[in-house]
């Protein structure tokens, strides 16, 4: 190596080092603070949390929720990905259906299911009780507050994530690979198992890993539905310990530790299993051609999923939002728009919308350049090994560690000197940045990897410098990815609930946390109207994303 070369490397290091340090402070420091506290005074936090009489139940419920909702999500997600690839031409619009549940905020979705499946006044239960074999029941037959239904609802909510990963993987498979296999004499099924599935391995592993971690850290459904029957998971335990008087941060940290450990293991596991990611360069001259043509059954499968996961809960929310009080007995004279008027007159609701939108936009604007910087470091700077590894791990951590843990960590970190940010929007923005860094980074990283280096080499051979190549080749090629990542991050953030619930203050609220407060107060009809409002805000975000990024921006998620 020449002296000049090593000087250039040092310059690179100095450029990327502040980025890594800031990321380290944001992502890792709150986790270290939590663990330090949990181990203080002879691990008092661990003794307090794991000495509880119900801790075994809590651990079992957490594991069951993660495992079974993962199974549901993997099966539904993969079937949907395959089904959407076989949709008849006229039914192409159904491709959006598996992604749409992401647009419906999880709190809205969960309360929608509660309105439908509450054992007493749940609308579907009332219809089911009209059937001859259930006509003698006074409540049920479905109990949305039971662990089984919490798992099913969680599984549905994770399905979209698995679908995203698997279908993205399918679309990235070049038709050349498939044609080559067929020319070499492989059958359709053989091609699927020998070519498609192996090339899907990164998507499947990522999808399963992400769904498992989301399931482990699942918070919304257990918190909103589980309280009636004492269903506890580690994430809700963290919330409860951090919202006691006096706040028991040490026990909250200890409650979250198993999730942190599994998160780190899964993140490492994914890296080992995927190995050298450049093996998965799939860009070729031809795009994915579905194996075996289209089928009307595919449309039926997608439509049924849309009905169950999307239309029904939304219908439940709409009906409750139009009544003066939630009741199983509906009549036309009950219908009212008072709850929508209350959205304006009830203190804090309009503010919460503004806070959600503003904090989400600021966080997204901060995340995109960070993600681009990290993705570039990882793909184009093979020479900066240590920094690359650090950046890789730090940006992957928030994917592995549930949002509620960052919420508690941020509450702890920013209610103490030197930086007291309690009650400010800044702390919400910071935690949002941390939560979205993996999405910002991974999406741009995947695009850069898939692109390979042949375009940049071609540009260089044609005489363009690095800046010209970046501006005229790389960035234009990344534009759809960046726009998709902005859309995805904005949608995810306007829904964000778990971390926001920890860092919000009583008057600095986002939409999801205020909705939860009204849910706890039993203001179900107002909650329903708020759920519609939240969906509308996200819907507006999606519409803007489509205007800017093209009609198929959602499909690029």
């Amino acid at each position: 190596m020449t002296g000049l070369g090593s000087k250039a490397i040092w310059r690179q290091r100095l450029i990327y080092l502040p980025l890594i340090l800031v990321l380290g402070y944001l992502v890792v420091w709150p986790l270290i603070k939590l663990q330090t506290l949990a181990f203080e005074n002879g691990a008092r936090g661990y003794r307090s949390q794991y000495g509880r009489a119900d801790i075994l139940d809590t651990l079992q419920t957490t594991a069951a929720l993660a495992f079974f909702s993962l199974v549901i999500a993997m099966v539904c997600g993969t079937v949907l990905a395959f089904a959407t690839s076989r949709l008849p031409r006229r039914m192409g619009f159904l491709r959006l259906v598996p992604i749409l549940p992401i647009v419906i905020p999880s709190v809205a979705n969960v309360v929608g299911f509660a309105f439908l499946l509450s054992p007493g006044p749940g609308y579907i239960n009332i219809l089911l009780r009209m059937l001859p074999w259930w006509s003698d029941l006074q409540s049920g037959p479905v109990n949305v507050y039971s662990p089984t239904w919490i798992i099913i609802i969680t599984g549905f909510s994770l399905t979209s994530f698995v679908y995203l990963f698997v279908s993205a993987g399918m679309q990235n498979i070049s038709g050349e690979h498939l044609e080559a296999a067929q020319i070499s004499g492989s059958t359709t099924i053989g091609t699927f198992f020998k070519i498609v599935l192996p090339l899907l391995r990164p998507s499947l592993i990522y999808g399963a890993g992400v769904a498992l971690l989301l399931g482990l850290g699942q918070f919304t459904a257990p918190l909103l539905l589980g309280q009636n029957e004492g269903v506890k998971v580690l994430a809700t335990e963290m919330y409860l310990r951090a919202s006691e008087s006096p706040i028991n941060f040490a026990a909250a940290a200890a409650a979250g530790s198993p999730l942190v450990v599994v998160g780190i293991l899964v993140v490492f596991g994914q890296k080992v299993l995927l190995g050298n990611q450049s093996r998965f360069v799939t860009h070729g001259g031809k795009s994915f051609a579905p194996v075996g043509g289209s089928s009307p059954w595919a449309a039926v499968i997608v439509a049924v999923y849309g009905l169950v996961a999307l239309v029904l809960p939304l219908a439940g929310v709409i009906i409750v939002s139009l009544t003066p009080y939630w009741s199983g007995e509906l009549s036309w004279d009950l219908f009212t728009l008072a709850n929508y008027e209350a959205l304006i007159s009830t203190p804090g609701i309009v503010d919460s919308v503004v806070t959600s939108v503003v904090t989400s936009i600021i966080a997204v604007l901060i995340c995109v350049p960070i993600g681009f910087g990290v993705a570039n470091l990882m793909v184009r700077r093979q020479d900066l090994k240590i920094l690359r590894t650090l950046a890789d791990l730090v940006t992957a951590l928030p994917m592995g560690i549930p949002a509620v843990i960052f919420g508690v960590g941020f509450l702890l970190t920013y209610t103490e000197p030197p930086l007291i940010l309690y009650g400010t929007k800044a702390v919400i923005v910071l935690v949002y940045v941390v939560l979205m860094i993996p999405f910002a980074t991974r999406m741009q990283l995947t695009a850069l990897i898939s692109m390979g280096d042949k375009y940049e080499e071609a540009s260089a051979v044609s005489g363009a410098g690095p800046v010209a190549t970046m501006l005229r080749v790389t960035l234009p090629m990344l534009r759809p990815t960046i726009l998709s990542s902005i859309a995805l991050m904005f949608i995810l953030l306007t829904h964000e609930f778990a971390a926001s619930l920890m860092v919000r203050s009583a008057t600095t609220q986002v939409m999801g946390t205020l909705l939860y407060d009204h849910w706890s107060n039993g203001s179900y009809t107002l909650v329903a109207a708020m759920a519609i409002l939240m969906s509308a805000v996200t819907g507006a975000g999606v519409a803007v994303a489509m205007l800017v990024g093209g009609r198929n921006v959602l499909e690029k998620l």
Partner: protein
Amino acid sequence: MSFPKIKAAVASGAALALILTGCSSGSGSGSELAGSWDEIVTAARDEGSVTIYSTHSPDNLEALKKAFEAEYPGISLTYVRGTDADILPKIEVENSTGSGVADVHMTTDAGWISRSLETDYSAEVVAPAIENPEYDAAESVIEDKFFLTSATVFGLGWNTTNVPEGLSTPDDVLNPRLQGKVGIQNPNGIATYVDMYRKIDVDYGADFLDRLVTVKPRVYPSAVAITQALASGEVWAAPMAASNIVTEQDKGAPVGFALPEKPWGVPWYSHVLASAPNPNAAQLLADFLLTPAGQAAISADYLSVLPDVPGTGVPGSTVTAQDVELGDPDTLDPESVEQFQAEWEQKFLR
């Protein structure tokens, strides 16, 4: 500098700038309590806003907001309604970080009130309404800080569609027909409910809790949530329902309410917070809470701290908030509450 370098630098700069912005965003108006009451009223108008945290019914807090803003145009009232489990940690964090949001805080937690007297959470209340002889400051104010504001009596609530015959004694709730359709409060983090469970275990008939288990009650975070569950028909009966059921009745909800022979009640006490960002408006609100107009709002369908306030109290009785005793703080320390919670969970959530 090449493009990726610029991007990397911009990224780290942006994150750093955000942190620095956050640093400077303090809270609180920095205003101080004025001298005379007239000066306090003037200063309160300058502050222009006041925030109350309360466990009272959302309908009553909304009524309080309207009444206060009508009395003092130009000063907006923000209320935050939650359970003690939601609110108490916020009060503590706001105090410890000096980032006060709440000006006045209203609670029923006897243990917390007692413990907070040893801290610097509260400011002395100087509202002239305290001197009203009908209010009886000697009985109603604790150490010049916590002042009695309202009270509730819990009774029997039912859904009139599903239980048309209504309830008259706590034992009526134990009818096997009501299995799975009885709503009760989760005492998690709420000392007031711990006190309630201990008392009704005796007053509702011996070992009432052991007998209550047999109807497999559904659990809700607060009495307010139970009222809604009764209205929706999600549960049909509740042995410890709040009197705000009457408010839902007026909206047309199919619910009924009756007091048992030995009802359990709890008073709300309020205090002006030392970390209040609007200390003058806080005193003004404290004063307003103790006026007939304030009581008509905050104590509608509940017990007033003043006699003869229309829309408050129990029909046919002269009972006021002063007649309802605050729990014994010695039995409501955090350890004892946590232990009761564990026992309660073993009973009701197994």
